[in-house]
């Protein structure tokens, strides 16, 4: 089950991961558990290496993970 410090309350299926060190972004060293905790990423690379988690989180927060607004 999800820990109580999972403020977003978004994620499931993390059983048994408690003893593993949380993976970190090679560029900024943000750890995955930080993203679970408060939804903050440290750099663009985080978006790539944690793509699955990011996608899940975006869907829970915004109802979608697809940008339909302004294009660069």
């Amino acid at each position: 089950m999800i820990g109580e410090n999972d403020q977003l309350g978004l994620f499931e299926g993390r059983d048994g991961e408690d003893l593993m060190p949380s993976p970190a972004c090679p560029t900024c060293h943000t750890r995955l558990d930080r993203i679970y905790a408060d939804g903050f990423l440290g750099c663009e690379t985080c978006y790539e290496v944690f793509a699955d988690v990011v996608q899940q989180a975006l869907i829970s927060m915004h109802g979608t993970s697809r940008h339909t607004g302004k294009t660069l």
Partner: protein
Amino acid sequence: MKAPARLAIPGSGTGKSPSWISGSASLSDVVLSTRARLARNVSGAIFPHMASDADLARVAKIVLTAAHRVQEKAFRSMHTVDISALNDQEKAALVDSHLTSVAHVRAGKHRFALVDDNQSVSVLINEEDHIRIQVILPGMQADAARRKADAIDDALSQELPIAYDKHLGYLTASLANCGMGLRVSIMVHLPALALLHRLPSTWQAANSLDAAVRGLYGEGTEMAGNIYQVSNAVSMGWTEAQTVGKITAVATYLEAEEAGARELLIRTRAAEMEDLVQNAQHQLRDAERLSVEEGVRILSTLRFGYLMGYDTHVSDTVFSELVAGLRGGTQLIASDDDRARDVFYQETRRPALFRNRIRAERSTVAAG
């Protein structure tokens, strides 16, 4: 539009209820101001909260250079403010004018704000994201504010590589802003709904319209004086124009609810409303000290009275000026000693400040 004549609060009663002007509300009665904010990051740079001093310095340099290069076409008159060079009072003033955030002024070195002459546009460097473009306009002007921010974004994007993904949109430090990076907020004043204890159900309805609600000074602050910030709850899955449309729909809904509440209060509780306004006037007349909370509560009641037709002289202008001048920012910024000293100073000068401004308004009205 010409303001209707103000009615004096009857001191020696004629036995009649005051003839309230009307229970109607307009969007500008309810929406005090509108803010549009865009969050952007420089591609290839670590986001501020994980960045080293050297990273922050580099980002500040390239964003400032880009901003100065596009100054001519994007901004009319921008001043560069080095936040870390400000004293606590200056920081508090920036926060009070909503030009930047408490987190930004507390964050340390390599933080900058570009501020225009009208204090309507600010570009924050190394806040939660590398770049925050913010436009504040009076009344309900969501589309205008959004377009102005967009124009500055266009200009800066020509000069800077921006962190962007074609599926996810603009990449931001917080996933809450990912996508459009846009937050459109309106500052609303809802005294009649508050008096009727209808705000909880009103916010439920606002939430169902995809809007989020906060207090006057942002997240986690008290809902002082029935002034609230309402903004879009999500930043993905909508276009910028749809976001403006949603916030406009919420404003229209709030205006109708507030108008209904005023009408009901006039019809059923006129004498009580009169007492309420009169009590606030007496409280201000007799006060030796006023806290920010007491101050905003009195102003809220006096503006409510003004809108209901009493001669409180707390017009929209007076209200906005005095609320902006409450200097609540000091309490959020200063060190403990300074804070205690400043809070005492502000509290003791506040009653006279309010009374003088209201007296000046009364003279203006009398002269006109």
